């Protein structure tokens, strides 16, 4: 299969350059801040540093090793020490990352798959009562922000009925078997996940349906039907396949902005992910932590975008010609 018109490595080099530029910006920025930012950093919060800690922090930001040393530090996970949380930044980060990946990854994958299938089936049944009802409900849901639906779910299912826990990702200090642990994690995950799916599903559904409705008008769908193919194949291999591109774009964009996306829901449900961590770090003015998370977030955007370039090529052979 010929997928890439140009050499496959070209996009990788471009994105690598962008990543380096970004890392350099994060390396330079603290130096460019006016005034004594180490003093300013914890000035408004409850953290007090002793002279030794302050000297160490200053040394860390002096970057006597230069950019090369900075990169080496990044690669060896030596991202500095968070005095607000009294732990190394990388440790805090790595503790929070799996929960965010679990929550956001599941939410994105589920809402995209579900939204796509529902949208495709709705478009196929265009004009039926089911489809009209579906579009109506999804349009209303699309208008409700997750900050609203999240609080409602929390109030009703956690606080009022008590069916689900109101905070955390797992029960602390419990002596669980693996099965019990897994059930516990799912139990904790349910409400934040439901909030996110409620927030992401309607958009995916409407996007998939609109794309599909357009594609269904095309001549090649008529050809596919004329070929006597099973209806499911006509729907997915021929029609839906051509409505997939906007869905993938949306998935990529959402995934790239995973951390900011997680901020609200993780905060509402006190879920110990990167969103909560970032929120707390900002509240504490814990610059090393904020810096680490933001740098990771921006690298994430690049990685996802790079991945998309290849996925586009795989999905639509015409893409190579456009660029």
């Amino acid at each position, binding site marked *: 299969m*010929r997928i890439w018109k140009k050499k496959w490595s070209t996009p990788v080099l471009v994105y690598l350059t962008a990543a380096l530029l970004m890392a350099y910006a994060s390396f330079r920025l603290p130096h460019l801040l006016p005034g004594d930012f180490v003093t300013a950093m914890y000035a408004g919060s409850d953290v007090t540093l002793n002279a030794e800690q302050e000297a160490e922090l200053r040394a860390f930001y002096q970057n006597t090793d230069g950019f090369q040393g900075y990169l080496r530090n990044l690669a060896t996970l030596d991202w500095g020490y968070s005095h607000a949380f009294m732990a190394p930044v990388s440790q805090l980060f790595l503790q929070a990352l799996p929960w965010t990946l679990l929550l956001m990854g599941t939410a994105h994958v589920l809402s995209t798959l579900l939204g796509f299938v529902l949208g495709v089936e709705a478009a196929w049944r265009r*004009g039926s009562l089911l489809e009209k009802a579906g579009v109506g409900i999804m349009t209303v849901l699309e208008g409700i922000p997750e900050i609203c639906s999240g609080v409602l779910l929390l109030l009703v299912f956690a606080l009022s009925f008590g069916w689900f826990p109101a905070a955390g990702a797992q029960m602390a200090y419990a002596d669980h078997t693996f099965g019990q642990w897994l059930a516990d994690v799912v139990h904790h995950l349910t409400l934040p996940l439901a909030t996110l799916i409620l927030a992401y599903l309607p958009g995916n559904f409407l996007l998939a349906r609109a794309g599909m409705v357009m594609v269904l008008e*095309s*001549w*090649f769908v*008529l*050809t*596919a*039907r*004329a*070929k*006597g*193919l*099973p*209806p499911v*194949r006509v729907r997915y*291999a*021929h029609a839906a*396949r*051509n409505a997939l591109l906007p869905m993938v774009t949306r998935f990529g964009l959402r995934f790239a902005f995973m951390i900011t996306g997680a901020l609200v829901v993780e905060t509402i449900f006190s879920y110990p992910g990167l969103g909560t961590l970032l929120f707390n770090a900002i509240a504490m003015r814990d610059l090393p932590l904020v810096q680490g998370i933001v740098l990771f977030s921006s690298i994430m955007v690049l990685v996802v975008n790079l991945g998309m370039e290849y996925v586009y090529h795989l*999905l*639509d*052979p*015409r893409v190579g*010609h456009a660029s």
Partner: protein
Amino acid sequence: MTIQIKDLTISYQDHDHALLALDRLDLALHPGKITALVGESGSGKTTLGKAVMGLLPENARTKGSISLDGTQILGLDEPAMNQLRWSQVAMVFQNGAASLNPVHSLADQVAEPLIQKGTARKKAMAAARDLLGRMGIDADQAGRYPHELSGGQVQRGLLAMSLILDPPVLLLDEPTAALDAMTKVFISRVIQDLRNAGKTILLITHDLDLARNLADAIAVLYLGRIMEYLPGTDLVDRPCHPYTLALVRAFPFMDGMRDLGGIRGDAFYRMVHAHARENGRTHEHVHVAAPDAVHQGGHAPPRGCLFQPRCTQAVVECSFGDIGFTASDTHQVRCIRGGIARILSFEKVAKSFGKVKALAPTDLTLMAGEVFCLVGETGSGKTTLASIAAGAVAPDQGRRIFQDRDMDTWMKTDFASLAPKIGMIYQNPAESVSHRFTVFDIVAEPLRIQKQETDPEKMRARVLAALADVRLSTAPEFLKRYSHELNMGAIQRVCIARALVHAPDLLIADEPTSSLDPSVQAKVLKMLLGLQIEKGLTMLFVTHDIGLARKVADRIGVMAEGTIIETGPAATIINYPEQACTKMLINSARGSGHPDPGIHSRL
């Protein structure tokens, strides 16, 4: 496998309106035969293909039957229909690359039906590549995506795709549209081979050249009704319905001589409406509406012939009843006049002026709506014949029949009703108008003589309309001009306006442009032929210039020594002249010598 389509009516519902796409259509498709369905866009050609495939949109309403070897397939449920699709009936859709899925490679799409029917992928792909190879697409091209293929490759690919399950019935919708001539030839060879292999083929096309080369039988569709069934070979040489003739005339055949002529007027969609009556019952009827027409109540349901508003030979009776077929040996024509009518025919008409035998006994037939050119040397009797046709000169012997009535009797009993039906343009425009007449008087003269118009206002309106038709000024100052104030081109235009002011059916033009310089001649001729199409005139065009005749005529009659020696379609006469005299005329016109030394010595 035989397909029988009987009494098929299809309309597309749109609120309380319905667009009638096919109206009581009968068509039989037989194995080893190519049946072509021709007609303008919007005539319902593609709807028929979709109906056979069971792919009509949801708002389509159907009546009648489509049967496949006796089994009714119209209205079959989806799973049953899906069994037939592609394995029994396959279709090549129009629109080329748009009919292919952009995200699958050509070979994948060709192999797909085979794979879905249970063939192993590897085997199916090999079969697809083999079939594509036979269509002239090599393995490398077969793996490409539709956007990487040329229009010709796409069309070959679509044809290969339709053949992958080796279906007995093929529906080809515009298989050669937008293709270059070479690919077109390749595709038509493939179609011929398929016919010889015993496939039942429906060829839906507006490419009349393809239809006449391939089709065993042709059905001509107009606004969803079949106007004529005819053998493929007769399409160009013997169309019987005025609509078929008009289509042929509009088509750029390679061997066509005459400049392209459109069909006058526009085709309209037909709407079926349901109106609530006072007693609560709805009443459904069909009416013709322009595509952008807004429905307004109070219209009458259309009756009679659909083509009548655009027809060149419509008579009052055309507007009534439901027109059936008139069958001849090989044609079936939906026309109450039995097809293209004779407007004028001569039987053994002869004329002498004293001792000079101007016209030997001559037969001549003019069909409604055609341009018939009389060519020949001076003194061959052209003008005499034209004058007899115009009723200006009485023949010594023979019969003249004009619009199915004996012309001599008609002239004697009721000349007033005959005179307006014939218009005449004379050889020398300057001499054919009185220098005492103003432009207005010249054009108004026929109306005054025939007492057609007594109201001066209406007369003025008709004169102005006639002048506008020939692109002359209608300013009051111009109307007061005398002929000597005008140039030759303008005088000839005035003469044409005079010939058309009383709305004749037959226009006789005797060397209308021989006194004009070529540039003016070109303009006047273009305008004259435009008027002929627009007003649906029949024209008898007399000229000594065969080069001119071939640009003007549908048919040419060659005159020599007082009679017509050869008649035929313009292309035939020019390309395959039979008579020595015709050859001489053509060669002289080409500037070379006479091919026949016999004629040479006789001169």
